[in-house]
């Protein structure tokens, strides 16, 4: 079974600084998808960034980028120029190639990010 591990329950960063959230996963598949979702307090979960495993290039979205290491099964999220609005719970999630089986996201346990002014 696939598992997703986020080893940092909580992280803190100063405003305007850079922070990296770690995520590792376990899979025997070669094709899959990885996601980072952000869940602000009392607000809905939104997608931060998405990575397709067959693409070697790391995904980026403005201040958010990933370091995808397929062989190491690592998918870390880097937030540059942190802003107060980045404070949230961040979930790493894995999706097996939907055409080859279960179509459910497997989430990690989350990392709560605090941004200090």
């Amino acid at each position, binding site marked *: 079974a696939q598992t997703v591990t986020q080893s940092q329950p909580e992280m803190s960063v100063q405003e305007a600084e850079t922070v990296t959230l770690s995520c590792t996963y376990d899979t025997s598949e070669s094709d899959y*998808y990885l996601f980072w979702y952000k869940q602000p307090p009392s607000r809905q979960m939104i997608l931060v960034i998405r990575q397709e495993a067959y693409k070697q290039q790391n995904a980026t979205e403005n201040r958010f980028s990933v370091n995808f290491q397929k062989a190491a099964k690592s998918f870390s999220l880097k937030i540059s120029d942190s802003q107060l609005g980045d404070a949230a719970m961040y979930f790493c999630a894995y999706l097996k190639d939907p*055409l080859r089986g279960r179509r459910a996201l497997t989430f990690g346990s989350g990392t709560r990010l605090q941004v200090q002014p």
Partner: protein
Amino acid sequence: DAMVIQNPRYQVTQFGKPVTLSCSQTLNHNVMYWYQQKSSQAPKLLFHYYDKDFNNEADTPDNFQSRRPNTSFCFLDIRSPGLGDAAMYLCATTKNRDRGETQYFGPGTRLLVL
């Protein structure tokens, strides 16, 4: 704006009293998911609909049921809520389920069982 809407945002029920949570979407997505998220835990998928096709997760208790009367609406029915069912319930949608698409989440309904 197109979105996923959940009502109510907060629901209080009594132990054993049936409760229904509602989700609607204006995205015209084919797939709707229901997740249970307990405090400080990751969301756990309960089931999903692909159009009218219902797909239950193997470990979802029979106490949880779902209905999808049309494309826009999906309901989560908890037949006899127990104290352990207190949680945030999240609804999510995707256009298709076979392309690793992003899931769009609603704001959730927080259920309290007294």
